[in-house]
């Protein structure tokens, strides 16, 4: 980056303090003090990031290559943990469940798009819908999980409702089997996030050039055609963003739901990778093994997230 002429002021201008030395650095005529202030202003953030993000991630990768119980000194075992991981049926089951939860992605991509479009074209009640759809996203995940647990557990609201309307034969211990609990948790996650995705889509639609939709309308296209052929194609970047965030959610933001709703059970049936990391570390004392799994999870989400950074970096800065 070079200093643009109109916005640079020669050194020694009032308020800059005494100029000790003038040097024509590659940044022509940029104040030394300006460079110094840049470093000073960014320093707390960089320190915090290095201390609580970069360094811990480094230790995760390192401990993933050791046998370690979290307390005594770690013993270097190379790729041993990863070899074990390849053949660990519980971890495989956990990853499979992550992929099952990723089945929510198409729903999260399409349903909020339609809902946002309805608000966008001002369906009756649109302002009310816009305000209420976001309510679930403001409730803490742990609270959503506890309400889901109390609703679906065997003596919960769902079963009493079924009994009350004469469908008692459908009563079921919903959380006792992964066949029912995984779809229910998936539903809860979709429900908890849909308002968030609607908001993202709405912002994207508000930024579209109204002339596009107007032209299509004059050409005789109905609302659905306009959504399909004009609005959706022009929201590609927003859809990329929703795709990335909902995929990452399925792989890396499931812990609280699982912990509260099924605690991974019955057995390991509703386990996800995150839960297995916690379990191996906290319950089994295999911190080294847990770190190897964490490294793998990091690689998966970083690969997906690289798209997100590209999208964000195009706009900011």
């Amino acid at each position, binding site marked *: 980056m070079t200093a643009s002429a109109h916005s640079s*002021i020669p050194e020694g201008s009032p308020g800059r303090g005494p100029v000790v030395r003038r040097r024509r650095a590659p*940044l022509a005529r940029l104040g030394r003090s300006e460079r110094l202030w840049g470093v000073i202003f960014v320093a707390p953030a960089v320190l915090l*990031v290095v201390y609580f993000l970069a360094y811990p991630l480094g230790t995760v990768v390192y401990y993933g290559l050791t046998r370690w119980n979290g307390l005594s000194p770690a013993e270097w075992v190379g790729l041993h943990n990863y070899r074990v991981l390849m053949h660990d049926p519980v971890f495989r089951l956990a990853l499979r469940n992550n992929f099952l939860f990723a089945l929510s992605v198409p729903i999260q991509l399409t349903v909020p798009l339609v809902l946002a479009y309805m608000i966008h074209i001002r369906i009756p009640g649109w302002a009310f819908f816009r305000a209420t759809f976001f309510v679930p996203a403001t409730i803490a995940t742990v609270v959503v999980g506890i309400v889901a647990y109390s609703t679906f557990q065997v003596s919960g609201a769902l079963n009493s409702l079924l009994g009350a309307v004469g469908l008692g034969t459908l009563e079921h211990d919903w959380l006792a089997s992964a066949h029912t609990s995984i779809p229910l948790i998936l539903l809860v996650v979709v429900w908890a996030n849909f308002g968030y995705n609607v908001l993202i889509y709405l912002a994207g639609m508000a930024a579209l050039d109204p002339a596009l939709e107007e032209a299509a309308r004059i050409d005789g296209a109905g609302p659905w055609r306009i959504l399909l052929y004009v609005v959706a194609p022009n929201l590609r970047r927003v859809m990329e963003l929703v795709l990335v965030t909902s995929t990452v959610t399925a792989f890396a933001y499931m812990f609280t739901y699982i912990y509260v709703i099924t605690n991974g059970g019955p057995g390991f049936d509703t386990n996800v990778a995150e839960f297995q990391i916690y379990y191996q570390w906290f319950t089994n004392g295999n911190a080294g093994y847990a770190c190897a799994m964490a490294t793998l999870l990091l690689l998966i989400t970083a690969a997906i997230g690289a798209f997100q950074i590209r999208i964000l970096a195009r706009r900011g800065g």
Partner: protein
Amino acid sequence: MTAAGSSGRALRLRASHRWPLVAGMLILSASAFFPLYVMISNGFRTNQDWADTQIGLPTTFGLAAFRRAWEGASIGDSFVNSVEISVGTVVLSIVVATMAAYACAKIRWRLRRAAFLFLLVWIVVPPLVLLVPVYIELSSLPLVHTNLLNSKLGIVLVYTAVNLPFNMYLMTAYFSSLPDELLEAARIDGANVPQTFAFVMVPLARPALATLAIFNFLWAWNEFMFALFILTSTGTKPLTVAVQQLQGRFDQDPTGLMAGLCIATLPVIGVYLVFQRHLVRAITAGVGK
């Protein structure tokens, strides 16, 4: 940015499409209030009434469940902890992110693009990956050898770091949208970099700062995973952890749990209703224009 959707264009759907859709959206809206209905209707009734009919409206009304939760289950202490942690996170996040964003958007120095990208990339790190190493790190901080496990300061530092990439991004986008002429004017008036920052840019950034404050407050208030492992005593644990521990006594005292959920949730809903616009701005940062 205007509130999302306010520049919507009215288009009419065929009535046979419109009314089923409106009905479906009404059901979704109702479902949005379902957890609130569950916790409020059950928080004010007795356990006996709950056992009789947990889905219907309460036939008893009392504050006993709230009293049991507030005192017996120390939800009151946790409420104070949640406030302290959330406010601490908001203050530290605003200071650190705003300074960094200013350096990335408005101070002309060679590494500003590199600094921006360095601070941004961590946005992809899932919090759970950090759980084990951060726990270990807090038990004995490198270089300073202090134990910040079970300390509100420790969790505030972690929360600030985890959200820093997003906060910095949000503020950088905002500062970038302000015209450089403002800086020029300040400089001609003799202000140096920190003076320009404190007396020109920060006052101009007030709307963005409000957005940042609301977003981080809600995030910290609702965070569960780090708090579960790091904050374990009555003196430190926030509401999310406290209500989850009430869940363990669900069979004995379901209404006490629901009262706890009310205490944990209703303030947040209030904050959302009051500051809706700011929150929407934070969520939709990076989308559109």
